[in-house]
């Protein structure tokens, strides 16, 4: 498998490219069963969790999504979740009424809530706060939820944080320990503008890929369905620590906006044997 630099690296022009899913459309087929598998993919079962039909409360179908963090990344992910037809809540650092204008403009259709309430009513909780403020996340409300860590350690913004500085583990393993819940690492290796600009329907040759790393294949599968519905090819990795290659500076994956074939090839070049 070789990288093809000229295929599908074109940037999206304004207004170009349809959203991947229209509200009401069900989840796309998970990529767990189709196409070449990355070497690091665990052979876990097809996710069974949450497969018992769409929920009906709120607007949209499928697993309820809560996004904790209403900044650059959080507002984009909430917008994509709404566009994928998922009932979506979003929480900032405080009173949800302060979020009204931001949600109206950046993620219309999402419901502003207090962080603990948003997490408690959701199936999938996307944590998108600066790592320096991770302790403000209501960890107790995350128990029993599928938790997605989209964060990166970014010293120019966060300052130097001793837990993450020079860490040899994946940053998501540290997040898991701080929050005390299992997490799936995803969405971290594309920029928020790129996430916004690159949504494509399944099968589009320009579609970008998002890797997901986690310990439990069924849980990863549920998040993979969300990734797919949001307009990206999911590429599962196992276990959580394998997500280290997705971090800033760890490989040529972070910030590169790769197609599925390109991402798989890059993963193979990083870890030729199984991870």
């Amino acid at each position, binding site marked *: 498998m070789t990288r093809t*630099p000229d295929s599908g*690296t*074109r*940037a*999206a022009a*304004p*207004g170009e490219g349809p959203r991947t899913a229209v509200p009401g459309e069900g989840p796309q087929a998970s990529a767990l069963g189709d196409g070449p598998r990355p070497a690091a993919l665990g052979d876990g079962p097809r996710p069974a969790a949450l497969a018992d039909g769409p929920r009906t409360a709120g607007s949209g179908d499928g697993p309820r999504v809560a996004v904790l963090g*209403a*900044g*650059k990344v959080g*507002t984009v992910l909430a917008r994509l979740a709404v566009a994928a037809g998922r009932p979506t809540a979003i929480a*900032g650092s405080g009173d949800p009424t302060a979020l009204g*204008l*931001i949600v*109206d*403009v*950046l993620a219309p259709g999402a419901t502003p809530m207090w962080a603990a309430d948003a997490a408690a009513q959701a199936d999938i909780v996307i944590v998108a706060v600066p790592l*320096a*403020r991770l302790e403000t996340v209501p960890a107790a409300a995350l128990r029993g939820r599928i938790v997605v860590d989209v964060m*990166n*350690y*970014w*010293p*120019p*913004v*966060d*300052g130097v944080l001793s837990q993450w500085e020079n860490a040899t583990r994946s940053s998501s393993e540290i997040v898991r320990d701080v929050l005390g819940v299992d997490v799936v690492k995803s969405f971290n290796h594309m920029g*928020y*503008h790129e996430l*916004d*600009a690159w949504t494509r329907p399944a099968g589009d040759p320009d579609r970008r890929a998002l890797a997901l790393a986690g310990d439990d294949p069924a849980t990863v599968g549920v998040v993979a369905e969300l990734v797919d519905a949001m307009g990206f090819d999911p590429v599962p990795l196992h276990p959580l620590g394998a997500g280290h290659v997705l971090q*800033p*500076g760890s490989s*040529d994956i*972070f*910030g*590169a*906006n790769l197609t599925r074939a390109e991402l798989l090839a890059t993963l193979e070049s990083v870890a030729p044997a199984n991870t």
Partner: protein
Amino acid sequence: MELGIYSFGDSGTVPTGQRIADLIAQARYADEAGLDVIALGEHHRPDFTLSAPEVVLAAMASVTERIRLSTGVTVLSTADPVRVYEQFATLDQVSGGRAEIIAGRGSFTESFGLFGFDLRAYDLLFEERLDLLLRLTREERVTWAGRTRPPLEDALVTPRAVQDPLPVWVGVGGTPQSAVRAGRFGAPMFVAIFTDPAPARSLVELYRRAAAAAGHDAAGLRVASGGHMYVGTTSQGARDAFYPYYAEYLGRLPQFPGGMPREVYDQWIRAGLLVGSPQEVIDKIMNHRDQLGISRYVGQFDVGGMPSGMIDKSLELFATEVAPVVRKETS
């Protein structure tokens, strides 16, 4: 439409004194060539020569006639607003009313440690200090109280600026809350954009709606944008010549520790990075204007420690081939 340049004074291999002398000469050239504004950033790291931009702006004031002299940005969270106002009111007097401030967070955090501020208090610091600075530009005597500095009681801050009020922009990188704050304060907004301006449309909408909700004349508020820029004679020549310097520059950020890969660079250019022939750069600035309604664009013209000859040539092409066309198309 106003056009200008900005610099962080990337050190490169040039001694500091020479780099600053080059910048002053470039400001003089920009002034003579009719550019509208030059802005200098504030960084507290060895890879940039400028930690006290107001001092270099004052030197620029003495060799220029018309060009506006701005920061880009003043790291307001770690500066005292009273001192900032005194310095820029003085610069305004020195320059005959050409001083401006862009208040912002900056790309790095060193100033917090150097001046003894808690990075976690960033938001409160910025909020309070922007409030006080704006008050100082509008009121000769200020009574103010907050949590991050001692209160002021009917304080007279002198000298007063020539301009009333002294322009204070708020620099925004993309955080929604920052755009809301700029709008709430009714301050003009500068948006840093490096690739596609389209995603910032919603940021500008957020800004104008927040301004309207706070009772400001939202439609009358100015928006400017800016980012990295390199103009070459030809498209391919510009891309190839600029690449090694840009790759090294972005290599200082966490994502590209070995330097920015060429494929990513080419992707950024396709997405909107202002690197190319004069016509390409014209088109990209016009796209900023079309997308965001900007009335000013400023390009960072000396990125990545380029040799001064390269910087001068790019600046010349910007001033003589890009700016006149953009002005004509937007007049």
